[in-house]
């Protein structure tokens, strides 16, 4: 009965979304305040209804109600409680419900906190948001009902895919979805602006915090997914250029571009038309990701049940939203007035350059991801586009962008002076050069690109630090007074510095972990020793162990460095009993920022096992950098000047910030 109640709540949410799609927009166009006022309460009620239905599904999972088909197929009574809970979104229907829940949550946030928005903009935005939720709730109800019942329920469920039985499932999908779906608000704002025919600096002011919020979560979601794949799959890789990963990288690239162009629009009223287009693109790419993952065109751990009806439905939704918004754009964008002239060498110019490279890189990823699908559909020829393609296209596009990153914040608005800007970066350049030479000296000439990569990473990091230090005039006024100024800097300044510093950290991790990694693959018998990067690994033997819903064979290893025991590692091979599915559990030893990674292959029967050991120098920096980036974004959101409804930035700049404070 409770389950049917959840289903019914979802139907109600659908009806409410329909109302939200039509009535407020009608009000906005007719100038009727009462119709516009419908939007906020309806958006909040839709959220409540979807929340109810999500709670009902969660309850079915926690109580292991196998009369619900979805629970039967994806749960097991012996599964640990945490995985019963996270299993709610460890399948197609449940994760789609989570997706919709976050979607209507964002709608409710705008409805609830949008009091400072112009009435018609709020109404139109919520209506557009209503179209999206109508489409996706209908998708759930029509093709992916999570509440379908089974007539004669069996006593035991089929269990969750063992790969997903991990703390990662509790973190990765929700973060990623908040990121993906968060861009829906930006999209709705853009479409609403097109419908109403006006965008201005205030619009950009409104959009930027939402974009930042979505971007921060997407950054964390991608980083978490990468780390999860790294430790769970046992291959020691952190990025595979898999279409599903690319599907999340594309909105990230477009979103990063949007973040930067929105700054230009907010400050200088320039790039309006472009910013609106980027807002549409970013969410369109999120939708494309959803389509790729859910339609069954790909096979991966993310592709749950494949049902052609679902693929077609999402494809139709995709065409309506992307085609419709782009058609609207083509029709209405010329009406938006352009403003704000600037010289090519200026802050605006640097931000345009940033946008150019980011969108080109995004296009490269787009082609690499979709070309094989297209070729298969048209000619039937099967190809795979892997890491070599992306290294050759994405890499060269990122290098000039990274070189340019430190210059952006030190250039002034409107008309900048490249020479004066470079002077502020001498120290950073010197440091980068020094470390490049040091890496050359350390590793010799056999790796040419790696030291340059290290130099590039240091350049980006040091550039970020140099920018904020010269902003507070540390050389002129001395460290003590400069420190006081640093504390007083606006959040968005710190945000920029941290985000740029973070990207440098990530790049450093990527370069060192790929160029200087050491790998050994050996067949080991008890007592055998493998030597790698100054560590000696001794295999002490293997023993079986029982888990709650799996059996495993655990290999015991002792790691020594110069004779002294550093740590013990226990990687294992598990067999999950319900599905009879094997998984590899790698054992990882973290030392500083580097990691020793050990995974087991199949056992040979005579006590010998295949072992794969990696030493990955500074690899954790890849994810730490992402966290720093997201932190920068978070600090930027908290900036009072960006806060929604805050008064226009006062002419008086905070002490220490030069005229070009940003």
């Amino acid at each position, binding site marked *: 009965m409770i389950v049917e109640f959840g289903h019914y709540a979802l139907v109600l949410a659908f009806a409410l979304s329909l109302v939200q799609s039509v009535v407020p927009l009608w009000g906005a166009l007719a100038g009727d305040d009462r119709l516009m006022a419908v939007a906020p309460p309806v958006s909040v009620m839709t959220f409540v209804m979807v929340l109810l239905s999500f709670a009902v599904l969660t309850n079915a999972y926690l109580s292991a109600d196998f009369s619900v088909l979805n629970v039967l197929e994806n749960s097991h009574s012996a599964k640990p409680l945490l995985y019963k809970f996270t299993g709610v979104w460890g399948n197609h229907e449940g994760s789609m419900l989570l997706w919709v829940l976050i979607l209507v949550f964002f709608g409710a946030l705008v409805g609830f906190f949008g009091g400072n928005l112009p009435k018609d903009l709020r109404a139109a935005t919520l209506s557009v948001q209503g179209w999206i939720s109508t489409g996706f709730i209908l998708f759930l109800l029509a093709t992916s009902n999570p509440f379908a019942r089974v007539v004669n329920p069996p006593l035991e469920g089929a269990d969750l895919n063992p790969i997903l039985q991990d703390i990662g499932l509790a973190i990765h999908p929700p973060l990623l979805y908040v990121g993906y779906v968060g861009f829906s608000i930006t999209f709705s704002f853009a479409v609403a602006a097109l419908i109403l025919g006006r965008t201005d600096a205030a619009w950009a002011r409104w959009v930027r915090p939402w974009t930042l919020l979505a971007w921060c979560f997407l950054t964390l979601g991608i980083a978490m997914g990468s780390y999860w794949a790294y430790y769970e799959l046992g291959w020691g890789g952190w990025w595979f250029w898999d279409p599903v990963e690319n599907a999340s990288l594309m909105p990230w690239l477009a979103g990063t571009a949007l973040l930067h162009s929105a700054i230009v629009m907010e400050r200088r009223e320039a790039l309006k038309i472009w910013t609106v287009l980027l807002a549409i693109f970013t969410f369109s790419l999120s939708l494309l990701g959803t389509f790729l993952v859910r339609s069954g065109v790909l096979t991966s751990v993310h592709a749950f049940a494949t049902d052609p009806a679902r693929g077609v439905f999402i494809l139709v939704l995709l065409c309506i939203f992307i085609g419709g918004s782009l058609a609207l754009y083509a029709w209405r964008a010329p009406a938006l007035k352009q403003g704000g002239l600037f010289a090519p060498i200026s802050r605006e110019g640097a931000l345009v350059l940033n946008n150019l490279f980011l969108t080109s890189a995004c*296009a490269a990823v787009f082609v690499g991801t979709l070309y094989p699908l297209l070729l298969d559909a048209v000619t039937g020829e099967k190809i*795979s*586009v892997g890491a070599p393609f992306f290294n050759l*296209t994405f890499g060269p596009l990122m290098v000039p962008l990274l070189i340019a990153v430190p210059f952006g914040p030190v250039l002034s608005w409107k008309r900048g002076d490249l020479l004066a800007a470079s002077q502020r970066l001498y120290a950073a350049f010197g440091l980068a050069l020094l470390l490049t030479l040091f890496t050359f000296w350390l590793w010799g000439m056999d790796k040419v690109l790696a030291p340059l990569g290290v130099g590039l990473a240091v350049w980006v990091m040091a550039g970020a630090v140099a920018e904020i230090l010269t902003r507070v005039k540390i050389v002129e006024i001395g460290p003590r007074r400069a420190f006081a100024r640093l504390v007083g800097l606006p959040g968005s300044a710190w945000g920029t510095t941290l985000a740029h510093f973070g990207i440098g950290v990530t790049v450093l991790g990527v370069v060192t972990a790929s160029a200087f990694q050491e790998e050994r*693959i050996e*067949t080991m018998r008890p007592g055998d020793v493998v030597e790698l990067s100054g560590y000696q690994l001794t295999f002490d033997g293997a023993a079986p162990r029982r888990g709650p819903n799996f059996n495993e064979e655990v290999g015991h290893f002792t790691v020594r460095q110069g004779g002294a025991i550093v740590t013990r590692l226990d990687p294992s091979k598990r067999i999950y009993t319900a599905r009879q599915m094997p998984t590899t559990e790698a054992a990882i030893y973290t030392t500083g920022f580097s990691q020793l990674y050990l995974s087991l292959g*199949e056992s040979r029967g005579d006590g010998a096992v295949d072992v794969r050991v990696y030493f990955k120098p500074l690899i954790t920096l890849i994810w730490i950098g992402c966290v720093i980036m997201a932190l920068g974004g978070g600090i930027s959101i908290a900036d009072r000047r960006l806060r929604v409804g805050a008064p226009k930035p006062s002419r008086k700049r905070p002490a220490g910030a030069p005229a070009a404070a940003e």
Partner: protein
Amino acid sequence: MTRKQRRLTLIGAAGAVLAGALGLILFALNDQIVFFQSPTDIADNAIAPGQRIRLGGLVEDGSVVRSDNAQVSFRVTDMENAVPVTYKGILPDLFREGQGVVTEGIVGPDGVFVADSVLAKHDENYIPKEVAEALKDKGYWQGEEAGEKTSAN
């Protein structure tokens, strides 16, 4: 600079970056993509030595031989032809005799396929799409049961 010059500079810079990106993409598409082949494809048309391909099919029953140093050799078959494969490394969890597999690498001069990656993906019912279709073409595919199992996940 005049307004017009500024605009031209901007458009010029944008054009240069986009042209560069396009050039890179086309070059890479020409050079860096890997074609999927079945054992019959390999038997039928000679593949240029040193060309990377993806070889997909079923792991032939009883063909897996493991030797020391994590060396493995096995045969990939599409029930008509079979190609011997060698690989050094840890096989994926779902690698089994009689199951679908996709390997990537180069055919050596002796006709042995030297793989540097072996994929047998995340699902116990997973048969790589390409392999399933290649087998269907040859009529060796009993898709109904497997298809049902897949949708039960």
